[in-house]
């Protein structure tokens, strides 16, 4: 390679100059707010002003029974939502991977929940969950499962389940598409060899497909854990965290404290907890990615 070409391919200054606008933008709109949130969490900031209060927000928060309940609830909510997304996504991908007529149409038909703004999709779910006029209650009443009108979002347990279902609805298409892409990436000759050896369909799935797509399954479980953890609009629109706090997750609680009550300090302390947890998830995800990449480049 001649000298001119080498300078063409590694101009550090130019490289940084091209990245600078995006980097500065993100520093200003994401990184600085992160630091500011940490600072605010040590103050009693509100619309009236702010004073340094040390760890008071954290002490109050961590010693409150309500907050501990919210953390537990967040993880239970996440557990159900993520496992359902993965399970339904996997089944969906298997179905859409089957060599059937019309499958390319089916693949398009599963995408709307992902593409449509969540805020609008949730209006549809609000109507479905309506106790008097929604079709779910309607079917329930006609079949006799429900004795009378039943507002699914009005009772603690059913509201919790309903928000999980709607969250699964939003998240499943993405998971399905990624699983499907992974399944299509499995080398065909593996299947042909197994077929010649007389392996059944189940064997081929459990001994070839599943191990081959495991990296993607792991990646998707962490990614959807992060997305589910961040899920705000779904719960906010359906229940605003109610009834009586039954669907209040960490994100909802943070929002309520900060922008509902204008207690910026307390809200910030919650936001810091959220960020710490997110950083843990993210670290886990990145470490895993690095390991998978290493495996691929060595294997």
């Amino acid at each position, binding site marked *: 390679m001649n000298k*001119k*070409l080498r300078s*063409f391919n*590694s101009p*550090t200054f*130019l*490289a*940084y100059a091209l*990245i600078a*606008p*995006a980097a500065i933008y*993100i520093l*200003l*709109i*994401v990184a600085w*707010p*992160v630091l*500011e*949130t940490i600072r605010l969490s040590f103050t009693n900031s509100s619309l009236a002003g702010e004073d340094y209060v040390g760890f008071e927000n954290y002490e109050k928060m961590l010693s409150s029974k309500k907050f501990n309940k919210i953390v537990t609830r967040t993880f239970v909510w996440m557990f159900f939502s993520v496992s359902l997304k993965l399970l*339904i996504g996997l089944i*969906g991908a298997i*179905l859409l991977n089957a*060599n*059937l007529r019309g499958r390319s149409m089916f693949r*398009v038909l599963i*995408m*709307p929940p992902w*593409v449509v*703004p969540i*805020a*609008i999709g949730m*209006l*549809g779910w609000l*109507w479905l969950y309506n106790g*008097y*006029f929604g*079709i779910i209650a*309607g079917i329930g*009443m*006609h079949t006799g499962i429900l004795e009378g009108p039943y507002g699914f979002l009005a009772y603690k347990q059913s509201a919790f389940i309903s928000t999980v279902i709607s969250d699964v*609805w939003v998240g499943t298409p993405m998971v399905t598409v*990624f699983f499907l*892409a*992974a399944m299509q*990436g499995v080398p065909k000759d593996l*299947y042909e060899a197994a077929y010649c050896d007389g392996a059944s369909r189940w064997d081929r799935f459990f001994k070839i497909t599943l191990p081959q797509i495991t990296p993607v399954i792991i*990646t998707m479980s962490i990614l959807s854990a*992060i997305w589910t953890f*961040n899920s*705000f*609009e779904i719960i906010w629109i359906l229940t605003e965290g109610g009834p009586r706090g039954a669907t209040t997750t960490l*994100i909802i609680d*943070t*929002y309520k404290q*900060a*922008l509902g009550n204008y207690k910026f300090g307390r809200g910030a302390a919650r936001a810091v907890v959220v960020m710490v947890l*997110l950083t843990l998830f993210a670290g886990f995800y*990145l470490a895993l*990615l690095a390991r*998978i990449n290493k495996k691929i480049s060595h294997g």
Partner: protein
Amino acid sequence: MNKYKIHEKIFLYFSITVFLIFILLPFVEMFYASLRPLDHLFRSPYQFFSDDLSFWAYREMWNTVPMLPRYIFNSFFLATTTSIITLLFVIPAAYSYARFSFPFKNTSLYVLLAINMFSGAVLLIPLYKVLRTFGLLNTYQAMIVPGVAFLIPTAIWLLKSYFEKIPVDLEEAAFVDGASRVQILRHIIAPLSTPGLVVVGIYAFIGAYAQQFLFAITFNQKKEFMPIPSGLYEFIGYTTVKWNEMMAASLVGIAPVLIVFLFLQKYIVEGLTSGAVKN
């Protein structure tokens, strides 16, 4: 080798139908509700059928919420502006990541991935303060500025993988022949990367269209700047909710993204998954 027996076929089609019902039920119900007269919707005991279905709600909704055209325009305007600004920031950065090697390249790429995981909801308090400091609350910018920031990371990753597919030899040859970097950009990179730019632009548009709600309810109180998701809540009146008109307006509101998506779904899905699956 993969011929299904008839009972297997029936089972597969049946399962796919169940899956699709779960996915499409809200939309079907939204559409059905939009066709029914309001008093049919509010009948007790519950009735599945109405005899006089009509598109009446699609006409009446413009009277109930007179600002509706404005909200639809706002949604479009916000999403378009947000995605164009995102592209302006992302194109040079993605090019740099695709072509050059420099210190902290991988670290900063992973930092971008990590940023992706912070949702806007966590950072609302300081963002509120930033926007207030710059006097941007209750303006279009209040929704555009944070919107761009949360689209940049993924957009860089996506576009980087497109740029990487353009053979570097082409650029090197032109460079050796004495072409300037600007000329290379204009005559080689730009034409070859148009499909990639379109996909990333569409991705940004769909993302921007979807994320408006959170920023709109938090940073904007002015009706004239509201995007459609927040405008839809005007159908919820003091005494009754005009469900049929709200559903009609919702469907009109999601039509643009759905149409854009239908035409380009193949490229978008390919673009998004190829990065993640290979990673």
